Structures are given as structure tokens and as C-alpha cells.
């Protein structure tokens, strides 16, 4: 019952406090906990029995005493006030205004955990989003309604890439209302500032909703931040019919907060100390993307996560990859060579690409061309390994051509300037130009009709003759 207060705790440990049984404490409901200083800390009931309740705080527990703490049950789950006024606002990690303006004017509150979308009510995403980045558009296409994370590492240009995608993303079919929801979890103020500047420069700041739980906020607050952001996104997408792009960064900080809480509750850990339900918990975030019947809007998610120690088999990227519809992987080696956006094409993947490209959507040659580029570039990688052992000079003429293809692929196709916005046609044409450096009968993944239609015959020949390894 709202306003009902109870004095005293029986235990306070980490983010969990135990209070004696309070009538009507519903599982999952919100509670406010006041210490002797009178400061209000918000928490959630995570265990409720006839004898006691456990409250998980979203704030620091410093200063809580056993005797003088008051617990107030709020009688409702954690909710976010939603309305059209969300646009252009900045909130803290718990969904309270953080930009100095009052709460938004709306009587509509939504539970932040949301309900799962009925799989029968989903609309399969197929609308191609042109990001202007060749390594994405050509090889790992982003589709409207997709969840496509960026797997990165510390110091890699994931923020620049995300900002470029936000700036350049557009649908070939025309103008539709859009919004951007940004959730920052445990990031530094500088990173938040970088995104704000980027939004401002491209003139979209008035269409952005930000939820910021910066590095100096209590880590536990991050557990709520993406849920608030997605609740806002769901309102804008399914309530207002907008196409919403959600950027979540950095999911690694979110997972670490989850581990912290799990450890303090004494749960049985699975890999690397993360709780056994990390998969289900991440799914409750990532699955809130997509399109549903009866609504014009959509939610496209670009979560960013930094792989601890660049290790893709770490539970965070691993479980994420099992839930999301692909991943964009950044590569440190490419980055150190000065290449931007340093996307590692082979381990990257877009699962929804198959149905969003081809004739009528991008271009008829897209599927076969990208498949061939993958095959040829994979070959390049094995030739490189060989060359590092026997030396480049000893390679067969054919292998040398693959080596050269790979170099040009990285330099001309994958690399581009931060403000370079390539159309899908330009991207595919670069691909064909590079393939023309390989013998025709090595292009087994492309049908002859496509080769005849698109493979440059004369134009690039000069370039080929210049290469010394030409046989």
C-alpha cells in the first residue's frame, strides 16, 4: 500500500537489504528506503516471504542503520512516465529528469520491464537501412527492427562508428518519423558528451531521448537504465509510430552490475562468476526490438559492448551473440594499422541480411557478390598465414593475387572516412572492382549471368597489369 512505512532492517549487505515482513509487499514492487540522513533510496523487492522481504537498492547503501532506517512500499513496480514530451530530454539511470527541467507532463506510466512481444504478432523485419558504411551495408546489412550489436574493445572506435551510423542511417524508400533513444550505462561523461555533440551537429538533438547512468553513479542503477530506455522506445515506436534507433552503451557495464548483485545474493555462479540467468536477462533487453503488427513504428537496437581483453568467447559477447541478430566485430589489428572503421568482416554477421537485400531492396547482385567477397577474403586470410611462414615471394601466382585482393579489400572497401556516406550502389561497385583482380573461374559463388552483367572487363585491367605478380 502506498505510503505504508516500516521502521528497521534486519540486515544490510551490499545492494540488498532485508526488512522484516511488511504486509502487502508484492514481488517486484518498488520500495523507498530512508537512512538516518533522510535521503531517499529507491529499491525493488526481490524476495518476499511471510517473515521478511529483501530489497535490492538502486543506490548506495552507505549510512543505512539497522534501527533507524525507514522502508516505504510504493505499491507499484518501477515505472516510467511516457509521453510525446520525452523527445529532446535527458534522464538519469532511473528515469528521473537530469537536465534541470521538470518531469514530463503525462499521466501515462509504463512498467519498465515490459511484457514480451507475442511471436505471432511480430512482423519479420526486411527494410534495408543504408548506413553508408560499406562493411555494414555490403557485407553485414542492418535491417529496420534488427538488434545488431557492436563488439568492441577498449580504445577502439565503436563510439565514432555508432555516431556515424546514427548520422547517416536512412531508408531508401523515403522520409518517415524517427527518434533516437540513447542509454549510457557506466560510461564516462566525455563519452556522453561526444554523443550529445554528434547529435547536435547532425541536428537531431530534438529527436533524442537520453538515459544516462554515468560511471560515477551507483553501478546497480545500470540494471534499470536500458529498461527505461526501451520503455521509452516502445512508447515512441508502437505508441507514436516512429522508427526508433536505440543505442545502448556499454552493455559490459550492465552485465557487471548484474554479476555484482548476483554475488551479493549468494547465487550459484556459472561462467566467470556471472549468474546462470545472464542469458535470460540479456534477452529481456535485446528482445525488445523489432516490429509488431498494427503499428507503423519499429525499434532497431545497436548495443555496444567492450569485450573484456578483446575476448569474443567471454560470456558477455558470447551470450549476446546468441540472442542478437548478428554482430559487428571491431578489430584491433586493423585499427592499429590506422584503418577506420576497422570492422573485422569475417566474424561479423547480420542474420536478417538474407531477406532484406537483393532485387527491389538493394540490388540484384548483392547476395552473390557479398558471398563471393566473404569467400575470397577468407581465402586471403589463409594465404596470409602461409605467407608469414614461407614468405610472400614463395607464394603461387594465384595466392599472390588473393593476397593483393585482401589488401585492397581492407584499404578500399572496409576502410572509409568518418564522414563518408557511400550509397549501396557505390559499395557494391567497389566490391566488383576488387573481384576483377581475381581470375574469373575463382568466382564460383556468383552465377555467370551476374558476372557478365557486373564484372568490370576493361576498366580495371590496367590496374591489374601493374601488379608484379600477374601471370
Amino acid at each position, binding site marked *: 500500500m502506498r505510503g505504508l512505512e516500516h521502521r528497521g532492517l534486519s540486515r544490510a549487505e551490499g545492494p540488498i537489504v532485508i526488512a522484516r515482513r511488511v504486509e502487502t*509487499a*508484492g*514481488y*517486484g*514492487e518498488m520500495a523507498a528506503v530512508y537512512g538516518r540522513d533522510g535521503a531517499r533510496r529507491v529499491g525493488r523487492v*526481490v*524476495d*518476499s516471504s*511471510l517473515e521478511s522481504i529483501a530489497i535490492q537498492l538502486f543506490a548506495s547503501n552507505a549510512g543505512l542503520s539497522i534501527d533507524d532506517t525507514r522502508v516505504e512500499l510504493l505499491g507499484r*513496480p518501477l515505472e516510467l512516465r511516457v509521453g510525446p514530451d520525452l523527445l529532446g530530454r535527458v534522464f538519469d539511470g532511473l528515469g528521473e529528469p537530469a537536465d534541470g527541467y521538470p518531469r514530463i507532463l503525462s499521466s501515462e506510466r509504463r512498467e519498465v*520491464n*515490459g*511484457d*514480451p*512481444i*507475442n*511471436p*505471432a*504478432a*511480430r*512482423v*519479420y*523485419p526486411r527494410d534495408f537501412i543504408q548506413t553508408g558504411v560499406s562493411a555494414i551495408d555490403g557485407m553485414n546489412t542492418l535491417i529496420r527492427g534488427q538488434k545488431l550489436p557492436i563488439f568492441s574493445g577498449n580504445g577502439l572506435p565503436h563510439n565514432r562508428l555508432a555516431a556515424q551510423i546514427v548520422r547517416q542511417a536512412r531508408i531508401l524508400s523515403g522520409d518517415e518519423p524517427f527518434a533516437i533513444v540513447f542509454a549510457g550505462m557506466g560510461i564516462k561523461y566525455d563519452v556522453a558528451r561526444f554523443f550529445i555533440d554528434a547529435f547536435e551537429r547532425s541536428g537531431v538533438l530534438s529527436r533524442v531521448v537520453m538515459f544516462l547512468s554515468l560511471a560515477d553513479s551507483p553501478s546497480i542503477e545500470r540494471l534499470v537504465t536500458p529498461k527505461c530506455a526501451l520503455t521509452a522506445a516502445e512508447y515512441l515506436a508502437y505508441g507514436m509510430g516512429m522508427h526508433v534507433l536505440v543505442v545502448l552503451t556499454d552493455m559490459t557495464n550492465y552485465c557487471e552490475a548484474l554479476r555484482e548483485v548476483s554475488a551479493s545474493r549468494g*547465487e*550459484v*555462479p*556459472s*561462467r566467470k562468476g556471472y*549468474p*546462470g*540467468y545472464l*542469458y*535470460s536477462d540479456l*534477452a529481456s533487453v535485446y*528482445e525488445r526490438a523489432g516490429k509488431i503488427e*498494427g*503499428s507503423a513504428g519499429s525499434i532497431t537496437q545497436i548495443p555496444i559492448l567492450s569485450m573484456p581483453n578483446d575476448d569474443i*568467447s*567471454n*560470456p558477455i559477447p*558470447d551470450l549476446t551473440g*546468441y*540472442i542478437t541478430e548478428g*554482430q559487428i566485430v571491431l578489430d584491433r589489428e586493423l585499427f592499429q594499422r590506422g584503418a577506420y572503421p576497422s570492422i573485422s568482416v*569475417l566474424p561479423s554477421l547480420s542474420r536478417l541480411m538474407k*531477406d532484406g537485400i537483393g532485387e527491389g531492396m538493394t540490388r540484384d547482385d548483392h*547476395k552473390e557478390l*557479398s558471398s563471393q567477397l*566473404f*569467400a575470397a577474403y*577468407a*581465402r586471403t586470410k589463409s594465404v596470409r*598465414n*602461409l605467407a608469414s611462414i614461407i614468405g610472400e615471394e*614463395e607464394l*603461387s601466382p594465384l*595466392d599472390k593475387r588473393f593476397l593483393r585482393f585482401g589488401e585492397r579489400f581492407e584499404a578500399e572497401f572496409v576502410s572509409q572516412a568518418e564522414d563518408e556516406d557511400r550509397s549501396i550502389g557505390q559499395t557494391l561497385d567497389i566490391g566488383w572492382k576488387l573481384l576483377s583482380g581475381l581470375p574469373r*573461374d575463382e568466382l*564460383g559463388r556468383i*552465377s555467370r549471368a551476374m558476372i557478365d552483367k557486373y564484372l568490370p572487363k576493361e576498366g580495371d585491367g590496367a590496374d591489374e597489369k601493374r601488379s608484379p605478380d600477374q601471370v
Partner: protein
Amino acid sequence: MMPSGPRGGGAPKAVQGRITRISGPVVVAEGLGSAGLYDVVEVGEARLAGEIIRMDGRGATIQVYEDDTGMKPGEKVVSLGRPLSVSLGPGLIGTIYDGIQRPLERLKESSGSFIKSGLRGESLSTRRKWPFAPAIKPGDSIGPGTLLGTVRETELVEHRVFAPPRSPPCKASHVAPAGEYTVDDEIVETDSGLRLRLAQEWPVRQARPARRRLAPSEPLITGLRVIDVLFPLSKGGCAAVPGGFGTGKTMTQHAIAKFCDADIIVYVGCGERGNEMTDVLTEFPKLVDPRTGRSIMERTILIANTSNMPVAAREVSIYTGITLAEYYRDMGYDVAVMADSTSRWAEALRELSGRLEEMPAEEGFPAYLPTRLAEFYERGGRVETLAGEPGSISIIGAVSPPGGDFSEPVTQHTKRFIRCFWALDRDLANARHYPAISWIDSYSEYAEELREWWDRKDPGWKELRARTLELMKREQKLEQIVRLIGADALPDEQRLILVTAEMIKNGFLQQSSFDEVDKYCVPEKQLLILQTILEFHDLGEKALKQGVPLSDIIGLPSRERITRLKGEVPNDRIDEIRAAGRELGAAFGELGLKYEREDG
């Protein structure tokens, strides 16, 4: 699954208790002492569906299949005195259910795009009428396996209604005449007082009985070359598809579900992506079964418990799926169950076990994980049904090992209970070589048992298969050398092996599910392509001995033609493959002559 009152038989006693503790999907209640283990309960004022999973002095521990946010200690719990069951009857085919058999389409119509707690819907429509044709008359004796009548469920599926597996011997006293009936209508009444409806119920955690087990001696033809020829699965066999994320587990399962020659497909999306189920829902109705010419949705049942739906229902979804499969098996059909993914199911077990504070075994999984896996896979198999006909369930379980590491518990334990292992390979997937089934790490123990069937079809199968596997093994060894010293350092005979292996990879093993011609390959075409490639190898070896340089052999235009056969020759024009083979022979003949002349 109906939490409402029981139908037919004596009404079990409802017991009421009270919640004492709530911790996520696990609820403890007191006062349920006379309820049974694994009984269905209605939890709280919202009457959420749950199941009793443990009883002790403190009370009953219940897993709740729906989100219980807002529930309070002290609310009531009602046990319905019967185990968790599914409704079985006409109307299952073409439907999409969640893990506890709630019909998702009907929920969408009644409550919108999001699934809220406490929603209910009839598993089988009680309004729809089905044309029933009785197969017995009053006075006929009835026992387990007696065919009561048939219903045309879809163009592809004749639904056979049998007396329940445990009905005691009796005689029919009344039989409904041919006509239109709903699933709730009684169709047969017996002298022992039994009233049989068109639909029945069966507890999901219990295997449906059959007369005896039969040997799985017939292949499940999938149309995927790497499976049918190299690592075949039999009807009634069990296979595992393990692979890290992005290696194509789901794509492989989809491809098999679309084109395999089973009569019924049960696709269980267990803890996976919502969009994947939507993909199935939008794509399957448009796809036509190559054998029957009808939409493949007319033979498919979908069970979707996606990763963000409640975890306890995910645990049950696998059993729901296999029970539906057994029901159709008992009609004499060959059923294929796709379980995607069994790892998510195992994780649900782990999560619930953790909430119960059980002692964990490996990596936090409960010690009974292998037992549960064994129970599940043993429900597959080929049997003689109670009616005396053969029927089968093939199980294809996807496994999602963390980090793609096959040494983890779920993969390892699964390997003990399956006989066909399709290991997905990260490097192949990165090069977009799909299906990324590794020809080195995969195996099928069914190959020996299927030999007889293939011998009748094409006696060459066994030898082709053995030669191909051997050649690919040799190629793997040679590749290790090549990685150190380069291909040029090898003698021509060995380089020819690399060339042939490359042709097998590109022209045979790799298969595009999106290519109209390539996506489904009939067994005859599969064998012909492989034969032609190996013939190239034989001719190449001979030519090398005659002194023909390898570069000339590689440069043959008919060689490139062979690797394109898979996509250029449709299933009904496989004579063109034979023609390509003859062309190849002629080309080699010319090469031989040319060098003979030069030598002479």
C-alpha cells in the same frame, strides 16, 4: 494446457493452499500437503499457471510459468489434482503455441501484441467443427490402439482418433454417426461408461506408450547433401547440431524442417529469438512441399517460447513438443522434432535449480541434467504403435555451447544420447560456407543401418561416402603441410587431391538455402554430382600418370562446369549431370591424346 476444470473421468479433488514466499519464478506455498508432485496449480489471485516441483516439510515449491511481479505472500494457491497435460486433437497442425500450449494467434486476437500474465486461450478451438468419419460401430470391442474414426485435418494430414492408450478393454455402446463435430463432442460411449471425445489429454512429462521399438532402417531424407550422403539421419534417429553463435544452427534446422521427408514437423523454438519464429510463420505458409505440392505449414506445429518469455515455460516447452510428436507418431506418421535450442532448455533447468538452492554439478548445471537429456532423446525412435503400425520420431536438437567450446556439459552429455553429430564449424561459417557442418568432426552411427536402404536405391552410396570421407581426411592432413610450406611444394598427385577436395567443398558440400535450384537436392542428384567429381579425380590421376601437367587439368572448362552443377541443374533434369560427366571424360581423352602425341 488447461488450468480450468478437468474433462472426462472422475473429477480430481482441488486443494487450496497459501503462498509463503516468492522468489522470481519459484513460489513456496503451505497447505498443499494432499496435492501431488508435478500437479498443475493456479497461483495467486491472478491464477497464474504453475507446477509443483518439490514437496517438503515447509510446503510445496512451485515453478510459475508466467511473470509473477506484484504477487504477494498470503495469496491463495489451488492445486487441480492432475499433472501438466496437453490437449491432443484436430487443430494442432498449423498452429503456433507457447511452451504451455497457449495458442499465440488467438492470444494476439484477444489481447494484443504483448503477452501479459494471466492470459488464457483454448489450446484447441472448441467452436470449430471437424468432419468425423467413424471407423467402428456399436458393439465393436475397444482397447488401447483401437481406431475410432478419422478426421481430415489438413490436405496432407488424416487425423486418426484412437482410443486412449490406457483404456481398459470394453465395447462401444454408442458411436457418433459421420458428421461435423467439435473437439469437445463425445464420439464414442462404451459399456464401461467411458465417454470419449474427439480430443484427449496427456501429461507432458510421460512418454506415450507403443507396442515395441523397431530398428531405424530408413533415412530421413533432408535434401541437404552433406547430411544425406555423408552423415545421414534415420527416421527415428536422434541428431545434435552444436555450434557457436552465427554458425547456422537455426538455418540448418529451418532447412531440414522445410524439406525433409517426414510427415509431420514439430518445431520447438526454445529460448531463442522471436524474429526467428516470425520468419518461420511468414515463410513456411508460402513454401511448397516438393513431394506433395502443398504448403509445408499444413504439416507443421510450432512451439515458441522465446528467450524473453518466462523461463519455467521454456523448461516445459520441450516436453510439450515431444508429446505432440508422439501423438502423431501413434497415428503411424513419421514425425521430425526440431528442438532449438536444447542448451537454453538446460539453462532453464539450471536457473530453476539455482532458485531451489540445489547442489550444482558441472558449471552450475544440476546433477540430473544427463538424466533429463536421456529421457528426452529416448522419446525419439521408430516404434510399432499400439495400433500395430510403424511410426517414428526423429529428434534434431540444436546445442549452443558457450564460446563454441564442445567440451561443455550440455554438448558432452548430449553426445551420449544421440547417434548423429553434425558439428558446425566457425571457420566455415566465417567464409559463409553453409551448411557449416564440419566433415572432420561430424559423425553418423546410422550409416551402417541405412546401407540396405541405399543399396536398393543406389549400391554406389556406401563406396562414394567412404571415398569422399577418406579424401577429405587426406586433404585435411595435406592442408597442414600446405600451411607450412605452400601448395607448390607438393607433388602433383597430392595437389590433385587438394583440387578435388576444393571441388567437393564448393560443388557438393556447400549448399545455398536461398537458391531456388540448390536449396533442395534429391538423393539421385546428390549421388550423381559426387560421382562426377570423384570421376574427375580418377581421370585426373590417370592423366597425371600419362604426363599431363596439373595446370591443364585444372584449366579444363568442364571442371568449372562440374562445380556449378548443383545450382544449374534442377532436380528433374539430372540427365544433364550425366552429360557433363561424359563431356568431362571426352575432355580428358583429348588431353591424354595431346600429350601422347607430344611425347611421341
